[in-house]
């Protein structure tokens, strides 16, 4: 599991951890059942406070991404394929919404926007 903390970022540190772990699970870099470091080990490795890692893990657990088994540790939770797909769709949707907001500020309408999207998709393949 790879976590990089940007100290100067305005985003709360626990939030950075949550997003990175979440992204890795969704992308499949972290597999179901894979063990995660304990909150204390993570805090020591990242040189941050234990309560910060605890908050991150609590949120990930609330969202259903990880499970903590008493006495055994923390593991990546079994991910529902449908649930994961939905999450990924939501991520794409959010990015699109951001692009639409920016476009609106500039006065770009749907026709120009969809043209840009088409070009980008063709670029990819």
């Amino acid at each position, binding site marked *: 599991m790879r976590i990089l903390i940007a100290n100067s970022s*305005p985003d*709360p*540190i*626990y*939030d950075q951890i949550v997003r990175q772990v979440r992204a890795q699970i969704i992308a499949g870099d972290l597999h179901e059942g894979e063990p995660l470091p304990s909150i*204390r*080990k993570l*805090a*020591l490795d990242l*040189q941050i*406070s*234990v*309560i*910060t890692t605890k*908050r991150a893990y609590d949120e990930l657990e609330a969202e259903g991404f990880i499970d903590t088994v008493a006495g055994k540790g923390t593991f990546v939770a079994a991910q529902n394929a449908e649930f994961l797909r939905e999450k990924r769709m939501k991520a794409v949707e959010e990015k699109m919404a951001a692009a639409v907001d920016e476009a609106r500020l500039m006065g770009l309408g749907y026709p120009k926007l969809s043209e840009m999207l088409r070009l980008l998709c063709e670029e990819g393949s």
Partner: protein
Amino acid sequence: MSADYALELHGVCKRYRGFRLDDVSFSLPRGYIGGLIGPNGSGKTTIIKLIMNLARHEAGEIRVFGLDNRRDEVAVRSRIGFVYDVPGFWDDQTLALHRRALGTFYPRWSDETFNRLASEFGLPLDRKFKTLSAGMKTKFALAMALSHEADLLIMDEPTAGLDPVFRRELLQRLSALLQDEGKSILFSTHITSDLERVADFITFVQNGRIAFSMPRHDLFDAWAIVKGDAAVLARLDPATVRGARQRGTGAEALVSDAASARRALGASALVERPRLDDVMVLMEGEAAHAA
């Protein structure tokens, strides 16, 4: 449950000539580091003395590991490693003699642990206490405090007098101690960067009262410093403003709700994560204002 807390203070009061500690309440759950911060003379040392029962509190309750700190004071103190800001050792005696004479008071004392720490800290055991530098004296007190498997480490200004290298080392060592989730640490300091680095809970003592006590993410993520024109800052919800000041270049305000500040002011002001010393300065200003 009481035993889940290393430390609990409820409504603690103490009156001295010319100084008063009033209605002090805060807690430290087991397995975390709590920091007591505040200007000199605000009451940090007094709070620590009351917890150790060096001074008797006049009202309220102090529980350590769920035990009453006065009724069960011997049981409580056998589990506390204590580092005071005034070295109370025998000037004309060697460190080794101190170990021999004092270690046995602790049920879980270990000479091996002490000797190991002494060599790690570079302490000359055959030298007399008075020949040590200020930093060495603190290291000795630390070695004593860490050699009896204390569940709670209480330290009053432990980093004062330490060189920056050892200070960093000490803070890392403290964090490493907490790998054992049964251990807890409380330390008081006026050096804000120490707390910013390691504290899980931050308690701000001001004029004998607790100005706030919260987990670090509440302070650093939910609170914010807002910088901008005084006119713009006036639009902030006053219920969230904890302190403010005018500067030549504009105004600054400390708010307890960063999100609402961003919504209210948008791009017309800078909303930043607070630094602990900014928090202290702005809250001091507020206290002086109210006085």
